[in-house]
C-alpha cells in the first residue's frame, strides 16, 4: 500500500472514529459530575478500613491487589523479553563487524568524556535521589507515591552514575547479579504476602498485618509491605533494562571500532 493510499484511508477513518466517539461521549455522565459508586464508596470507607490516607495506593495494593500482582508480572516478563531480545547472538560476532561501521556513522565516534560540570552535578544528585526514592516507596500509604513511582526514581540513580562515569562504574554500582536477585525478591515478596493471607485461613492478599495508627509510617498493614516489594521489583527491573540497552550500545560501538 502506497503512503498516499494509506494517508487517505487514515484521514477518512480517523474522522469517522472522532465523530462517532464524540457522539458516544455525549452519553457519558457530564464532565465533573462523577456518578460511579465505587470511587465514592472507597473515599468513604478506605481510611477506616485500611488506615491508609492515600487511597490510590490502597486501591492498587489492597482493594485491587490481585490485578496489580498481574501488572507487576507484566513488568517482570517484559524485562525478561528485552533481555532475551538484546542478548548476544552467535552469528553477530563475525558478520556485523565489516559493515556496521560504514552503515551507521555515529557508531564510529568515541563517546565524549563527561564534562566536570556533569560529573559534579550527577554525583551530587545521587544521594538525594536515593533518599527521595526510598521516601516515596515507604510513604505510599500516606501521601502520593508508592512502589511503582519510587522504584522508577530509585532506578535513575545508577543511570546518573553512568552519566558521570562509564559503564564499568555503572556495573560496579548496580551489578547485574545483585540487581537480578533484588528484582526476584521484590516479585516474590508480593506473592508471599498474598499467601500469608491464605496461611491465616483468610483469602489471597487479605490484609493480615496489624493496621497501626492512621498517618504513621507503619500503618496500613500489608499495603506498606507490598509497596516496598514492588519498589524493589520496579527499581531492579528498570536497572536490568538499562543493563541490556547499554550493553547493546557498547558492543555495537566496540565492534564498529575494530
Amino acid at each position, binding site marked *: 500500500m502506497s503512503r498516499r493510499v494509506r494517508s487517505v484511508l487514515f484521514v477518512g477513518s480517523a474522522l469517522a472514529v472522532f465523530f462517532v466517539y464524540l457522539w458516544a461521549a455525549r452519553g457519558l455522565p457530564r464532565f*465533573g*459530575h462523577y456518578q460511579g459508586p465505587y470511587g465514592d464508596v472507597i473515599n468513604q470507607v478506605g481510611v477506616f478500613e485500611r488506615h491508609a490516607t492515600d487511597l*490510590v495506593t490502597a*486501591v492498587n495494593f489492597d482493594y485491587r491487589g490481585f490485578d496489580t500482582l498481574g*501488572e507487576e508480572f*507484566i513488568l517482570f516478563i517484559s524485562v525478561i523479553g*528485552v533481555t532475551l531480545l538484546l542478548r548476544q547472538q552467535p552469528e553477530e560476532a563475525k558478520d556485523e563487524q565489516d559493515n556496521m561501521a560504514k552503515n551507521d556513522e555515529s557508531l564510529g565516534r568515541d563517546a565524549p568524556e563527561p564534562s566536570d560540570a556533569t560529573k559534579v552535578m550527577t554525583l551530587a544528585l545521587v544521594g538525594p535521589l536515593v533518599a527521595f526514592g526510598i521516601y516515596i516507596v515507604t510513604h505510599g500509604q500516606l501521601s502520593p507515591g*508508592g512502589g511503582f513511582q519510587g522504584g522508577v526514581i530509585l532506578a535513575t540513580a545508577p543511570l546518573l552514575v553512568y552519566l558521570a562515569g562509564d559503564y564499568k562504574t555503572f556495573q560496579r554500582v548496580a551489578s547485574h547479579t545483585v540487581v537480578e536477585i533484588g528484582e526476584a525478591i521484590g516479585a516474590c515478596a508480593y506473592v508471599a504476602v498474598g499467601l500469608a493471607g491464605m496461611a491465616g485461613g483468610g483469602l489471597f492478599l487479605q490484609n493480615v498485618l496489624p493496621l497501626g495508627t492512621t498517618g504513621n509510617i507503619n500503618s496500613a498493614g500489608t499495603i506498606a509491605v507490598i509497596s516496598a516489594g514492588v519498589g524493589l521489583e520496579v527499581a531492579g527491573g528498570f536497572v536490568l*533494562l538499562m543493563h541490556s540497552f547499554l550493553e547493546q550500545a557498547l558492543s555495537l560501538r566496540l565492534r564498529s571500532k575494530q
Partner: protein
Amino acid sequence: MSLLPFAIAAWLFIIGLYGVVTSKNFVHLIMCLVIVQSSTYVLLLAIGYKVGGVAPVFAGVKVGTPAVDPVVQALMLTDIVVEATVAALLLALAVQAQKRFRTLNPDKLQELRG
C-alpha cells in the same frame, strides 16, 4: 464545554495514530504509540473528576470531603507502567531491526522482505 476533555482524549488518540501511520522511523513510531496510550489517561481522569473534589489523599483532610475517584487513578497508574514496559520491549525490537536490516524505516523493512 463538558465534551472538551473527551474531545482532547480523542484528539490525542488520533494524532498519535496519525504519527504511527505516517512514521518513517521505528523510534518515532514507538513515541507516537506512547501518545496514543496517553489519551487513555486523559479519558480515565476525565471520567473520575468531580467539580470541587480534592485528590483522594486524606492526609490532613477530613474524611467525607468530596474527592475525585481513586479507582480510575489507580487504573491510570497501571496504564503508565504497562506503557513503559511496552515501550521498552518495542525499543528492543527496534534495536534488532537496525541490527538485522540496517534500517529503522518501516517501509524499507517491507522492501527488504519482499
